Structure formats: C-alpha cells, structure tokens
C-alpha cells in the first residue's frame, strides 16, 4: 500500500497547473476511492522510484480590494459653516482637483449663503487659470492708473501750507523735461536701441470701432493705432542678468501718470529696431540682433512674440536695424534690411518666408552694410539707406533700376541716422534728408545732388540720431554721445542749434523721435531711460515758415557753392 503523497508526482501523470488556493499543489478533485482504484491498477503495482520533484510554487497576492480613502480636512476658518455647507464642501473637495474650474464655479453659483473659505489648492488653481490672468492684467492696469492719479479732491488751500510748485523751466530754452520712463526690472542696464511713437490717425472715422461685446477696459486697450500717447522702446540685453531675456520692448503711455510700462514684451535675441506696424493696429514689429523679425500682439496677453521669421538664409542672418511697414491699408509690406545688405519684403500675415528679397549692392561690387533706412514721405518705392562706410545711397524696390541707385558721399564715419523731410506744407521739400554720423556731424542733403548741401558741425562727439520735425519745415532734432539734445531751426540759424539741453547725467543718447504732433521729443539713452521733452513755441510752425525755408535753402546753396572746389553733381531724379 502506497500512501499517495500528492506532493510527489507520479511519473506518468502530467503536471497540472496548480490552483489559486496555495494549499493544494495538484488539481486533483479525485474521489479517494478512485485513487485507491488507481493505486490498485497498473500504476499502483509497479514499483515507483520516488524521487524529489520540482514543486512549482506560485505566490498569488491577495486580490486588491479597492477602497476609497477620503481625506477631508476642515479648513481652519474663523467663520461659520452651516451643516448643509459642510456636506457640500466635502463633496466639492473630493471632486475639486479633477473638475474644471468652470464646473466648480457653476456649482458654487447655485449655493447661497455666507461666504466660505476656499482651500489653498482651490486658490492656487484659480490664480493659475487663464481667465484669472486676463482679468488680473486688465484690472491691475486700470488700478495702477487710478492709484497714480492721486489728485486730492479734498485739498484745503486755506488750512494748509501750499507746497512749492516744482517748475520744469530750464533757463530760457524751449526744451523742458516732461517725463522719464524707466522700469527697474526691464530697463536697468539695458541700452535703448530704438523708439517709435504710435502713428497718428488721419481718419477719425476709424476711431469708432464697434467692440461692444468686450468689456469697456479691453475696448480701450485693444488698439494702438488711435492713441498717439503710446511710445514703444526696444532694449538691448542686460549683461548683469544673463538669465533674463536678451531682447525687451516696452510700450509706454504718456497719458497717465503711472510709472510702469503699458505693455512688456521680450524675446530671446536683443531687439535692435522696433516699430508700431502701420495699418495693423495691434501689432508691434521688432528686428533682432540674430536677424529674426518678431511680431508682438497686444491682443494676446503673452509677452513673447506671436510670430517670428525663420532663421534661415532665405531671410536675414545679420542684425536687422531697419523695420518699416510701407504701403496703404490694403496693400502693405514690411520692409526689413540687415547689416549684410539684404533687403526683404514681407507680408505681415505670413512671416514664414519673405515675399521678395534682394541684395543691396552698389555697382556690382560688395553689398552695402546698411545701418539705417528711410522712406521719403509718400514714397513706397524709393528709399534711402546709410552705411557703415559713411556713404549714403538711394535705392528703389521695384522697376528697372531695382536696388541701389545713386551714391552720396560726404560722411567720414558710419551713418547712424537718416531722416527724410516730412512736414507737409505749401512748398514741397520731400527731396531733402538729413543724416547723422560718427564723424561728429549732421549733414543736409537733397536727393537731387550727390554731395551734401550743408554740414552741421556743432557737436563734439558721435551724433547718434537725427530726425526732422513732422510739422515744422525747418526744424530737426539731433542727439549725441555727450548727452546733448539739439534742436536746429534752420530758418533761425544754421551755425548753431536754436535750442539745446544736456540730459541729466550726460549719458550717451542713442535715439531721438518726435511725437506725431511735433510737440514732444522722446530721447532714449544708453542707461535704459526714455526722456520725454516738451518743445514749446519753437515747435509750432507758421505758414510763412515754408517760404522762409525755401529762401534758407537758396542761401545755403549759394554759400556752399562759393566754398566748394568742385561743385556737386546734379542727379537726374
């Protein structure tokens, strides 16, 4: 009689998979009598050589019983929570992290009663939500303006000492400081590379945009185009803060007293030129050091560009110092020129590749290293560029003579600024332009002759920028590296500036821009500060100024003609 040990396998019997219950190793559901039968049968009669056999031991983990662990912590709040509130609070919290903020809001709307506390988690969720950020951005803007306008309506003149009125009078000059725009975080240690005022609207009809579905605050802010009090400044990189974005553009507002920028934008490469995109009220175009053109949009609350051009050989690979939107409302292009002489024309809706591009080459020799570009008023085809060598060229975009046309020699150092005459009046002076250069001079030119009409030599340092007044025919502003802002009124004097002021601290002044109305001048310096100066009576043009300027020009030509050995070459226009 063999004791059938189930643990020991009988050789001819195949191994069967053991069951779930670890206690049995063989799935024998056999009746003991059957076993006995088998034992008595053939199987049983043979002598079994019993030997150890491998036992497959399988461990099955106990089945997981899914149990829900609800952690509820009653917030430590000082105020009452009704019974029904508590219940709802509990269910609310369980569903909290998974639910949409929207749903939470909705369920909260249905509840009434005393305000309850939100958990830290819920608060954080709210603070990170998109709609909160939009609300916050708008409301803070309004609030800051309200805080800044701190006119005390209750001020009692009889009872208190009057504070001395701070005058901004600077001697007898017509230039007086109005504002200083500077932001501790974004302006510090950055050089201002470019300035642009929001273009003035010429058609009042366009002002009445119907944006009634937006809240009043956003209607106010949705378009740059109608608000000439806006000024954009672009900034270089901050060497002291390598982790901050290299390129910054800030939009400042003249209208309100608050000292923080209206909009803050940044990008990865230093922004070397910036401008409000004419005909595109919400866009800001920036040219960067890397050659990329970036587009910021004030409708999106992102601070990074909404569009950028590719960094490819088809576009620009050198710093883009000139960005200009030219054309009309229906047909306009963005023209950009980089320092390797490449000019590209873009469609603002599609910045993935330029519509056309061309190398600016003079006389089939090497490309012009362009430092500045200007379009004469009303012209969308012909333009003027200044170069690093000091030469100025006229060029055209289309036509048989597309590319560089004429060369204008005169400057002995790189050209830093070009400005075409823009004041519209009884006499047309649109052929005139002024240029500034490292050679300490500002020169007056006409597109009709390739030598300067006149050279203004009152500066003792690099002249970094120059700009004609948009309203006065004989007035232009120039800034230099010694902190001087000069206003030249040629009808008054051509030897010295009519008004001059040295900016506080005498920083190098990089840019000067007249406001569209011609009454203010914005100056950007090397320390990241934008100074706004009011120009007084000097800036106001009178109708006889045009005729007067005509005479001034004749005098200039006459005097110049006497001094020159070889007369300037008259150019066919």
């Amino acid at each position, binding site marked *: 009689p063999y004791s059938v040990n189930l643990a020991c396998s009988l050789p001819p019997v195949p191994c069967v998979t053991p069951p779930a219950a670890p206690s049995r190793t063989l799935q024998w559901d056999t009746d003991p009598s059957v076993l006995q039968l088998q034992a008595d049968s053939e199987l049983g009669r043979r002598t079994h050589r019993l030997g150890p056999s491998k036992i497959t031991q399988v461990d099955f983990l106990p089945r997981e019983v899914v149990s829900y662990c609800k952690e509820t912590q009653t917030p430590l709040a000082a105020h009452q929570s009704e019974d029904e509130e508590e219940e709802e609070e509990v269910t609310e919290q369980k569903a909290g992290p998974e639910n949409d903020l929207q749903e939470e809001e909705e369920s909260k709307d249905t509840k009434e009663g005393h305000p309850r506390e939100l958990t830290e988690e819920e608060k954080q969720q709210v*603070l990170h939500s998109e709609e909160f950020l939009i*609300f*916050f951005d708008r*409301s803070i803007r309004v609030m800051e303006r309200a805080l800044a306008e701190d006119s005390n309506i209750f001020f009692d003149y009889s009872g208190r000492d009057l504070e001395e009125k701070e005058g901004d009078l600077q001697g007898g000059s017509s230039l007086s400081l109005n504002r200083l725009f500077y932001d501790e975080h974004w302006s510090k240690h950055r050089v201002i590379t470019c300035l642009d005022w929001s273009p003035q609207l010429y058609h009042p009809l366009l002002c009445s945009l119907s944006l009634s579905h937006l809240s009043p605050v956003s209607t106010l802010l949705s378009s740059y185009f109608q608000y000439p009090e806006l000024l954009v400044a672009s900034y270089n990189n901050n060497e002291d803060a390598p982790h901050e974005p290299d390129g910054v553009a800030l939009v400042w507002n003249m209208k309100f007293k608050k000292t923080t920028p209206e909009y803050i934008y940044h990008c990865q490469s230093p922004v070397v030129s910036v401008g409000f995109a004419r005909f595109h009220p919400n866009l800001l175009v920036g040219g960067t050091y890397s050659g990329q053109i970036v587009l910021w949009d004030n409708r999106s609350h992102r601070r990074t560009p909404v569009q950028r051009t590719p960094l490819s050989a088809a576009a620009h690979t050198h710093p883009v110092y000139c960005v200009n939107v030219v054309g009309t409302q229906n047909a306009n292009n963005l023209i950009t020129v980089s320092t390797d002489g490449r000019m590209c024309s873009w469609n603002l809706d599609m910045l993935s590749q330029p519509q056309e591009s061309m190398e600016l080459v003079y006389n089939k020799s090497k490309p012009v290293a362009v430092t500045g570009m200007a379009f004469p008023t009303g012209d969308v085809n012909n333009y003027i560029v200044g170069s690093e060598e000091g030469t100025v060229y006229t060029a055209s975009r289309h036509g048989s003579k597309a590319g560089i046309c004429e060369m204008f020699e005169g400057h002995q150092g790189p050209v830093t600024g070009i400005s075409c005459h823009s004041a519209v009046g009884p006499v047309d002076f649109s052929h005139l332009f002024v240029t500034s250069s490292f050679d300490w001079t500002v020169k007056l030119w006409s597109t009709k002759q390739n030598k300067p009409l006149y050279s203004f030599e009152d500066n003792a340092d690099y002249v970094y920028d120059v700009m004609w007044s948009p309203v006065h025919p004989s007035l232009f502003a120039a800034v230099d590296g010694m902190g001087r802002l000069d206003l030249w009124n040629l009808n008054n004097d051509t030897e010295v500036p009519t008004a001059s002021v040295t900016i506080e601290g005498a920083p190098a002044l990089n840019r000067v821009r007249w406001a569209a109305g011609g009454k203010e001048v914005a100056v950007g310096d090397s320390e990241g500060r934008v100074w706004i100066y009011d120009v007084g009576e000097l800036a106001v043009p009178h109708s006889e100024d045009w005729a007067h300027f005509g005479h001034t020009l004749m005098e200039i030509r006459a005097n110049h003609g006497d001094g020159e050995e070889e007369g300037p070459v008259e150019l066919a226009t």
Partner: protein
Amino acid sequence: MAEVEETIKRIQSQKGVQGIIIVNAEGIPIKSTLDNSSTVQYAGNVHQLLMKARGMVRDIDPQNDLTFLRVRSKKNEIMIAPDKDYFLIVVQNPTE
C-alpha cells in the same frame, strides 16, 4: 504666476497702499495682503456693495454696467475694479 505675485508686491509697496484683495464672483477671497479677518470683512462688505451698485446702474439703464467703484472715506479710499468672474480691491490712503 510669479508675475502676479510680483505685481501685487509692487503695488503694495506704492505710496499709500494699505492692502490688495482679489475676490471671486461669490465674494470669496482668493488672494490678499491683509490679515484674514480684515480680508473677510472687506470681501463680504464690498461684495454686497458691488451687487447693489451694479444693480443700481443696471436699473437706471439696462444697457449700462458697472466698471469701477471708488469709495472715499475720511481715512482711506477703497477702489474696486469689478469683472465678470473676479474683482480687485485696493485700499489706499491717498494723502499719504
């Protein structure tokens, strides 16, 4: 998010600003630079006032809506910028 913090800190440090509170549409404070009890007090009261003011504006002209509310008192000024889902309260002492 850090920008929100930064902005609130900056406004808080401006001359005369005593406190900033952000409240949701229900009157529950989300963020505040004041202590808890003051926050709750301001939030609750402002909420009620806001509802009343908004109701008044709408009552007089249903097409109109409340955009800003300023409450000037002897000691300070409470400025409220309401919105659809939240409102921002800033308490300042303008003569400081």
